[in-house]
């Protein structure tokens, strides 16, 4: 079943035309990677889905429902979560408060905290610490935990390995692998081996357009098919 579908999405920042007719789809239970060089519109695609930067043309449907025109919180209420590129944890809130604020109304907050701490035990040790004082890796774990406890059917994950030490990247990959067992993921990732390892399918974006797509089983990280779009 198709969970998410973008059709002819045209998105602008002011007069700057960033997405030029992006069309892609994500099936329920899949992990789909969105790859491409810096500045080709990967993050803007995620922002267009969330209606943070609403498309001027085209459609974004989730479980068959049009998202264009909804508020971002309404998109989130429908089960679309976001783990942003620059973590964007609430630095003045404690670790526990960052997790709590991510739990939808009416859900079991204590169970969500337990889940977050089981996934990333270091967060349990620092539950009362101000989140802004965590290391970069710990902040990324908190950002992931915040996305995971939201009980989302679709998680939009933006550059989860960016700027992290290799050991932390491995932890993050494990957490995403676990999440993928229960959640559909649309993953933006510059680390191609990681993206191909996690994803079932991929889309390549170039200059605001989808220029290639396929199964990750068909390609490798040094495949000429990908390299021509990914090398600077």
């Amino acid at each position: 079943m198709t969970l998410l579908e973008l059709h002819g999405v045209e998105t602008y920042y002011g007069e700057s035309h960033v997405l030029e007719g992006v069309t892609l789809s994500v099936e329920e239970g899949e992990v789909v990677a969105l790859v491409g060089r810096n500045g080709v519109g990967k993050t803007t695609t995620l922002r267009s889905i969330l209606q943070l930067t609403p498309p001027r043309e085209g459609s974004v449907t989730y479980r068959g429902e049009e998202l264009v025109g909804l508020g971002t919180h309404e998109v989130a209420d429908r089960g679309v979560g976001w783990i942003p590129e620059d973590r964007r944890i609430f630095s003045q809130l404690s670790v526990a408060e960052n997790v709590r604020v991510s739990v939808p109304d009416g859900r079991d907050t204590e169970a969500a905290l337990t889940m977050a701490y089981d996934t990333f035990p270091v967060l349990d040790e620092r539950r009362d610490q101000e989140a802004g004082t965590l290391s970069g890796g710990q902040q990324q774990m908190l950002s992931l935990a915040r996305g995971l406890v939201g009980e989302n059917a679709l998680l939009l994950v933006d550059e989860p390995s960016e700027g992290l030490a290799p050991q932390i990247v491995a932890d993050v990959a494990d957490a995403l692998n676990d999440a993928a067992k229960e959640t559909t993921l649309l993953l933006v990732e510059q680390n191609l081996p990681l993206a191909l390892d996690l994803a079932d399918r991929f889309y390549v974006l170039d200059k605001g357009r989808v220029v290639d797509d396929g199964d990750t089983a068909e390609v490798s990280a040094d495949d000429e098919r990908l390299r021509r779009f990914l090398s600077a």
Partner: protein
Amino acid sequence: MTDPTVLTELTALALQAGFVDGLTDFLGPSNLASVVVEGLAKSAIYVMIASGLTLIFGLMGVLNFAHGSLTMIGAYLAGVVMVVLVGNATGQWTRMAFFFGALVVVFIALAFLGGVMEIGLIRELYTRPPIYQILLTFGLTLVLEETVRIVVQFYGLQPISEWQGALGTKPAFMATEHSLGPLSVRGLAAFEILLGLATVAAIWAFLTRTRYGLYIRAGSEDAEMAEALGIDVRRVFTVVFALGAGIAGVAGALLMWDPVWGASVPLAAETLLPAFVVVIIGGLGTFRGTVAGALVVGMADATTTWWFQNVFITWTWLPEMAVFLILVGMLVVKPQGLYGVEEVGGH
């Protein structure tokens, strides 16, 4: 003929002697305690008039120039409620009960007005540069002040001396001084401190112990991220604006009873200026900073008032100048204030 050098030395010696005498007096337990109590009372007033302003700026990035007008309307409304309700009731506890009833009425009315202002006017301007919000709220100040002026003149509530009837609704224990050992405390000052503490505790508990408070703190830091987590930040904006307006009104209700302030149209400007001083010293947008800023300004005001009344010369504007000197010093040394961050405002 007197040698000018000798004259200068004599003047310096006299000033030094005066200062030493003043310092000895100031550090006497009775005077020091009295200054601390007066300082806390002033701090309580400042924290109440500045809290709403800082909550609104912290979450929404809106500098609400109409904040003082809301305080002024709160003062008049509380006065009307007290004059109408108290009537012949003479028991001081009855008057206290009516006052708390007036507080509830003022809070609800001003919160409603604030909510209408946010939804009807300010919401349209979030995507515009801040100057639009400043011009709008400044314009609102003029409209609200003139509206109140027309109403109070129509009903004969002005001149101010006539309006002071509302002051007569004060319970007797607030109008007199009370002895606590060597310390003499004004009843109204003690009440202001208690109400200020209760307001700070209530806001603090709301922000840190409720789910909505958590949404407000998250939205203050990053409104876009909060929205992406499913929080309806627009609704939170409306609630915070209403809350800020309600608190401004409650501050006005308290000022209505204070003969230094009273209920008058100029109260709008008279409260807006110190509110801005407090939030700038504390750090724009942080409640903790506002409490600290109010303490600094209140204590500085009380201390300099004592010095100018008892040691130097009695010029009422001099303590005010000392407060503004602290503001200038803060802007030079730490422009973001005691607890402020370099950039605030959720959108």
